[in-house]
């Protein structure tokens, strides 16, 4: 995918994010994450039923990378089993951290495969994953 297409996809998810807005529903578990430079502030809410991620939503105040990555993450994880979700999260983290990874499982999350070139952006991309991991591990 060329840079322009990736940029357009990231910006589209930033400006029109999917699954934004936290549900007022006790079946969802919420985890807030903030990054160390005190800027991005994202809350992810997920409903996990019978080992499956039935729904994921997010909200917060964050930069283009963090907001868009949250949006794409919700789309990619919705409907997956916990195990499948863990594989996606693990490979996404590996991609951002420049380790070998399986791009076939990442779907649209592959648009972040050049984030590593801007080290200050890595933590932004990883922030929503921090929240969802805690939710998945807790159930």
């Amino acid at each position, binding site marked *: 995918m060329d840079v322009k297409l990736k940029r357009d996809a990231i910006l589209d998810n930033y400006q029109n994010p999917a699954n934004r807005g936290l549900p007022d529903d006790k079946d969802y578990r919420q985890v807030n994450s903030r990054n160390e430079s005190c*800027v991005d502030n994202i809350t992810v809410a997920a409903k996990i039923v019978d080992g499956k991620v039935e729904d994921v939503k997010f909200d917060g105040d964050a930069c283009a990378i963090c907001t868009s990555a949250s949006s794409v993450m919700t789309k990619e994880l919705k409907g997956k089993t916990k195990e499948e979700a863990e594989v996606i999260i693990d490979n996404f983290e590996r991609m951002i951290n420049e380790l070998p990874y399986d791009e076939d499982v990442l779907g649209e999350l592959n648009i972040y495969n050049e984030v590593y070139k801007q080290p200050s952006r890595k933590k932004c991309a990883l922030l929503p994953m921090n929240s969802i991991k805690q939710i998945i591990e807790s159930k």
Partner: protein
Amino acid sequence: MLNREDFEILNTGIIYFDNAATTQKPRSVVNKIVDYYTKYTANAHRGDYDISLKVDEEYESTRDKVKNFINAEDRSEIIFTKGSTESFNMIVFGFMAHYLQKGDEVILSKGEHASNLLPWISLAKQIGFTIRYASLEEDNSLSMENLKEMINSNTKVISLAHITNSIGDVRPIKEIGELCKENNILFVVDVTQSIGHLRVDVIENNISFLGFSAHKMLGPTGVGVLYGKKELLEKLVPLEYGGGMNIAFSSSGEYELKELPFRLEAGTRNIAGVIGLGAAIDYLENIGLQNIHEYELELKKYLVEKMKTVPNIKIYNETSPSGVLLFNVGNYFSQDVAIYLNKFKICIRAGNHCAKMLQEVICSTNTCRVSLYFYNTKEEIDKLIEALKDQDKILETVV
């Protein structure tokens, strides 16, 4: 533009506008530190040989320089710390923990840095004294009227920044110091943002305690100063015990501590850092704080005028009389703006600037901050403006 040639980094094309976070270091400060490490490395206050005595001389001469710089009465009133944060923790947990009682009131403001808020909040939970926040005016400067109204017979301490790191407003510390004197209130001042920019006089301003960090005034990181009036500092209970601060101790459990200032400087201090701080003070005295302040005001005026020619800019502190400018560009997230400017080697700060309560006041959680110093230039500001005028390109930096 003042003394730019002393800062090698400024020849690399970097435009450094994050001086409220830390300042660049002139060659003379770096050389002074290198000299200690290459020519006379030894511990302080320990040896009977020449290079150790040379260390004592340099280390203690910095104490004299600090004393003169802030016009303290006695050199023993100057304690070297790791930085402002440690200074404030010592004031709060070493002194106030034994001074304040339930029912007492401490006045702070929501514009303070975390280091002048969290220690108080933490101690208040233990002791049960009350923290009251002096309100801010429309331009986010401190409301003196409100401050006066808040003072009552329970008010024991007022602790405020001289210049805030976010708004950059300059508090009238002389007037507040007088108020404190009239009402028998201790006056604690965070001069971290002002010490390298404006003259601070502890006697003229009736300051009980103050704290600052060397790295925000051309000095090295990891060293700072705690000043306390002698009679107060005498009552400050050390938070650290160990070598260098005791006279004698025995297995019976008896111990005797040294006099000030050594009692409050346990362990081997940041000797190189302290010596570097001395060189930073020499450097600042040489340029003159008044010259620095005047030049910063001229730069800020220029920056504000130019920023107003850029579309979609919201400025939060146009009138504050220091080199700090807080702004946002349209609906762009501050961090996206900062990362975009980095492409032009322009260094600014995005976020909440460690003043997390301020967002309750200015209704914006995140802002961009430009903070100027004497080595910045109008040409650098022009480059910032040019980049901001091209704001449609801000989000192109996502890939």
